[in-house]
């Protein structure tokens, strides 16, 4: 391993600019003659728009234009779409309701944009927005997914009777029911996977610009996947043909999934720029983020796990209602289906699994992928069931897990996935050691002496990352391919630019991708730069989400580097006057095998461009190669987290006193960055378990609409983590990488709730386990115990 190669802890190259205030975000972009947009948003969860009077607003100082859904219709712009087709049990296609970028006939959630004011300054745009008169006829609303399908519930979209988008299933119902019938023990749980607001540190933003001379559009946008944004805006919205639309995603300050999707605001900024003939800039305020960024999770589930006499799992069944909000966001349909039910086997050998999912519309912000996307929900179901079952069966939770682990690979689960490699025992064993599982009983006694309740909880999670191959994704309904591309561009002086279709918004690609190139070509890491986030520069790309950039994005770079090396060997063979087959490339040098004759990397790069030593008929000049890499399988990161809590029974406050994470991410490119991802992921998961919840009242108003009421995790909410790794290489990609970006958020919620329920001796606690919720659960437990006595 070189000092900057694969496996080295290299400091993040991008941090110099980020921590010195030199990052360049969409909000930092200012275009000559730019105007500012302020959206008029519905204050009602559900209301017919009877009319919009913009007369007064249009006369306000500085106003350039006031545009409404009717103007969109005049320009015949297409609707926003959901790009993953799901079919119901009965074979019918999902019920996708029209989603115009500005509401046309009715507003379907609080915050739904109904008009936009374009003005010289932001203050003027805001002043005028207040003067736009919208005549609403308020309609009954439904916000609770569990209520959405009931007879009396408000009906949101005509195309979806009973607000039902699809009724999907996976697995063999008959076999699973039979397994339950003959089971020795069945554990049952009702679970609410709480709705979350993503809250990336950088709010979404967009600047649209139209060049009437060339007919070209440019969109600066906070997106995790600029090419996908361009494709959707070109092909479905019909704003501009793809070759006349450039999407630039400069530095992006966090996404967690929420910046994958194509949103109304960027479409409107782009469209309005042509309408008004000037660039249009929009930057979300935090309050708008709460009301317009796609939220995450929001499942209501009943789940059961069946065991035989030996404590072996014989079946799992789950029935889930998934809230997709008011409209189907870009990938919303796939999250509670193929990213969820396929993971219900967890790390266990479960012969029979059956899952039914109803996706529903409600009068809430659309729900889509959020760090982990479906996999945290699945892990929560599986890991809560196993833990509760262990308690019911009086088997040690670690032992029950061990008894059911998958040992043979590859392993075909009954829910599509074929796990390729792993060693679940190894991560469990290491986690228990690091967590001093054996010493827990003593620590619990010590806590009890201080009047505290101590609990320990495990979460042996698995995830499927790097969704692939494209053919398989397509057969499951994906509207896009899920490969990745890379172009390796060697300059005459030997430095290298990598153009990647992945997109970094916190992951550290500028460092990790450069480590790969540095090691492979034997050049200094500073001689490598990673270029991403501009559709005019980068060939194409599917972007970054689902922990795919290491496994898929870097594999594409490996492929391109293979081609570069092959070509460079050809150039070297001319320089060394040797047969191409005799050239060996190692440590940045091309050597004739068995001799000491060599040329360094830099000479080969230069000669590739001067082309003085070979004829253009024989060999093309230049040294630049592109690759599109399509994986052969998902990757399967897995591991075991152990959470230990101490609860103050007087107040219900939970303190996380120990956290151990042992993850198997395959080969680690940069252990420091991986550890950072683990820390961040766990903290986000702790946020879900203890603090965060988007609450809608019965009228569809978002009660937790700001940080005053929506609680994000802070540093003091988490302990210093103990992080360890075990390694089984991923067999399906050249580097053996599995992905690490989401693991913490997937593993954590179950670990926390398992620890809390262990401490209080009651399973009746929903997330977030706030002090009040824990205190109430303790009171309830005490009361039932008293009644029993």
């Amino acid at each position: 391993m070189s000092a900057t190669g694969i496996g080295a802890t290299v400091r993040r190259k991008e941090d110099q600019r980020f921590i010195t205030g030199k990052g360049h975000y969409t909000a930092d972009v200012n275009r000559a003659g730019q105007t500012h947009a302020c959206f008029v948003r519905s204050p009602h969860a559900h209301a017919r728009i009877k009319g919009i009077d913009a007369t007064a607003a249009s006369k306000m100082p500085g106003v350039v234009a006031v545009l409404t859904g009717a103007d969109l219709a005049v320009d015949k712009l297409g609707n926003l779409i959901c790009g993953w087709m799901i079919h119901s049990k009965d074979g019918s296609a999902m019920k996708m309701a029209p989603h115009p970028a500005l509401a046309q006939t009715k507003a379907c959630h609080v915050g739904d944009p109904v008009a936009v004011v374009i003005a010289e300054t932001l203050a003027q745009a805001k002043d005028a927005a207040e003067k736009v008169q919208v005549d609403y006829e308020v309609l009954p609303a439904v916000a609770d997914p569990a209520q959405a399908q009931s007879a009396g519930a408000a009906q949101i979209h005509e195309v979806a009777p009973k607000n039902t988008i699809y009724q999907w299933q996976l697995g063999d119902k008959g076999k699973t029911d039979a397994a339950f019938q003959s089971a020795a023990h069945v554990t049952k749980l009702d679970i609410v996977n709480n709705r979350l607001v993503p809250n990336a540190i950088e709010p979404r933003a967009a600047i649209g610009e139209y060049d009437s001379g060339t007919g070209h559009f440019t969109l600066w946008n906070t997106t995790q996947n600029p090419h996908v944004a361009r494709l959707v805006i070109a092909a479905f919205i019909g704003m501009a043909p793809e070759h006349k639309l450039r999407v630039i995603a400069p530095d992006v300050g966090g996404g967690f999934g929420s910046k994958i999707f194509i949103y109304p605001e960027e479409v409107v900024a782009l469209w309005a720029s042509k309408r008004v003939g000037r660039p249009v800039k929009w930057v979300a305020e935090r309050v708008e983020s709460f009301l317009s960024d796609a939220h995450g999770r929001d499942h209501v589930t009943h789940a059961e796990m069946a065991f035989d006499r030996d404590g072996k799992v014989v079946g799992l069944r789950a029935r889930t209602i998934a809230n997709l909000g008011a409209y189907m966001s870009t990938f919303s349909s796939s999250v509670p289906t193929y990213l969820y039910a396929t993971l219900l086997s967890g790390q266990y050998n479960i012969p029979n699994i059956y899952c039914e999912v109803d996706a529903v519309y409600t009068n809430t912000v659309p729900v889509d992928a959020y760090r982990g996307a479906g996999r945290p929900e699945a892990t929560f179901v599986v890991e809560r069931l196993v833990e509760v079952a262990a308690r019911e069966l009086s088997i040690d939770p670690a032992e029950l897990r061990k008894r059911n682990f998958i040992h043979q690979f590859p392993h075909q689960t009954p829910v599509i996935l074929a796990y390729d490699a792993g060693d679940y025992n190894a991560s469990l064993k290491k986690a228990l050691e690091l967590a001093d599982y054996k010493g827990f009983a003593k620590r619990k006694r010590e806590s009890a002496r201080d009047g505290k309740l101590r609990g320990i909880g495990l979460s042996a999670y698995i995830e499927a990352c790097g969704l692939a191959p494209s053919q398989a994704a397509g057969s499951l309904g994906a509207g896009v391919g899920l490969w990745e591309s890379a172009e390796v561009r060697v300059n005459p002086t030997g430095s290298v630019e990598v153009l990647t279709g992945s997109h970094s918004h916190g992951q550290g690609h500028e460092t990790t991708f450069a480590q790969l190139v540095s090691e492979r070509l034997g050049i200094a890491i500073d001689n490598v730069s990673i270029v991403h986030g501009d559709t005019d520069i980068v060939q194409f790309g599917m972007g970054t989400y689902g922990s795919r950039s290491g496994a898929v994005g870097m594999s594409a770079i490996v492929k391109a580097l293979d081609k570069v090396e092959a070509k460079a060997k050809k150039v070297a063979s001319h320089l060394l006057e040797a047969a191409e087959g005799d050239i060996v490339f190692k440590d940045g040098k091309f050597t004739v095998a068995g001799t000491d004759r060599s040329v360094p990397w830099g000479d080969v790069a230069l000669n590739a461009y001067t082309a003085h030593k070979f004829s253009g008929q024989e060999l093309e000049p230049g040294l630049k190669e592109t690759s599109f890499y399509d994986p052969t399988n998902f990757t399967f990161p897995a591991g075991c987290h152990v959470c230990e809590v101490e609860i103050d029974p007087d107040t219900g406050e939970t303190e996380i006193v120990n956290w151990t994470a042992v993850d198997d991410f395959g080969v680690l490119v940069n252990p420091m960055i991986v550890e950072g991802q683990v820390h961040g992921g766990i903290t986000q998961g702790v946020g879900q378990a203890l603090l965060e919840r988007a609450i809608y009242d019965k009228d569809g108003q978002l009660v937790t609409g700001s940080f005053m009421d929506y609680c994000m995790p802070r540093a003091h909410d988490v302990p210093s983590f103990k992080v360890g790794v075990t390694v089984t290489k991923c067999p399906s990609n050249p580097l053996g990488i599995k992905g690490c970006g989401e693991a913490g958020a997937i593993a954590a919620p179950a670990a926390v709730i398992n620890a809390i329920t262990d401490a209080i001796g009651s399973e009746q606690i929903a997330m977030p386990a706030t002090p009040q919720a824990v205190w109430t659960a303790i009171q309830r437990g005490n009361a039932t115990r008293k009644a029993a006595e």
Partner: protein
Amino acid sequence: MYAFTLHRPSSVRQAANLLAKSEDAKLLAGGQTLIPTMKQRLASPASLIDLSLIEGLSGIELRGRSIVIGAMTRHAEVADSPVVQENLPALAELAGEIGDPHVRNMGTIGGSLANNDPNADYPAAALGLGATIVTNKRRIAADEFFTGMFETALGADEIVTKVMFPLPKKAAYVKFANPASRYALVGVLVSKRGREIRVAVTGAGANGVFRVTAFEEALQRRFGPKSLDGLSVPAAGLNSDIHGSAEYRAHLIGVLARRAVAAAAG
């Protein structure tokens, strides 16, 4: 934010004059409550009268058996003040638990008391320590100052200039922070000065900060946490929201009061 006129007077008299004659004017202290409300366009004063350039409005002084704190004194100054730490540590600790460092470096004691947020910490200190609020016109005992949620006895052109805290023999403040906002979900200040015992509760009352006479009487008999055993505050009439039901708040008042008494007695 809407446009407004900014006045920057250099004396309390000037400030009071401006306040009396400008229509729809508001005093600006640390701006930690006022500015966010204006940014959200929930308040639109025509003019702001900034108190920060007025000399003598800020500072901490030990005068006899009292600590006197200027209205414009920032929370961080109170928290870090050796005078307060030594003579009235409960107050320094309370100030040090308000919001975050940014808020503490800007927010002022005068602004906090004048605002009388039902979840704010300083009202508990003022009521629980029997402070006197001094204005440009008069002195107001804390017992008369807080008149309801976001309501005080201050007149329309009245300005808080300082706050006088008589030094207690024993005092402690225990706060249970709202996990999201870090304001007090419930905060209890307990003090003993001579024969006088005060138990003031913030965060829980529908009308803002209040005293718990039942607790005070019990503590008169013996100042120790055990004296509060079996006593509780009725949940009826307490605040109830997504962060805490009235029952939970009532329960917390008991827990925190016992802890405060233990801390003060110990």
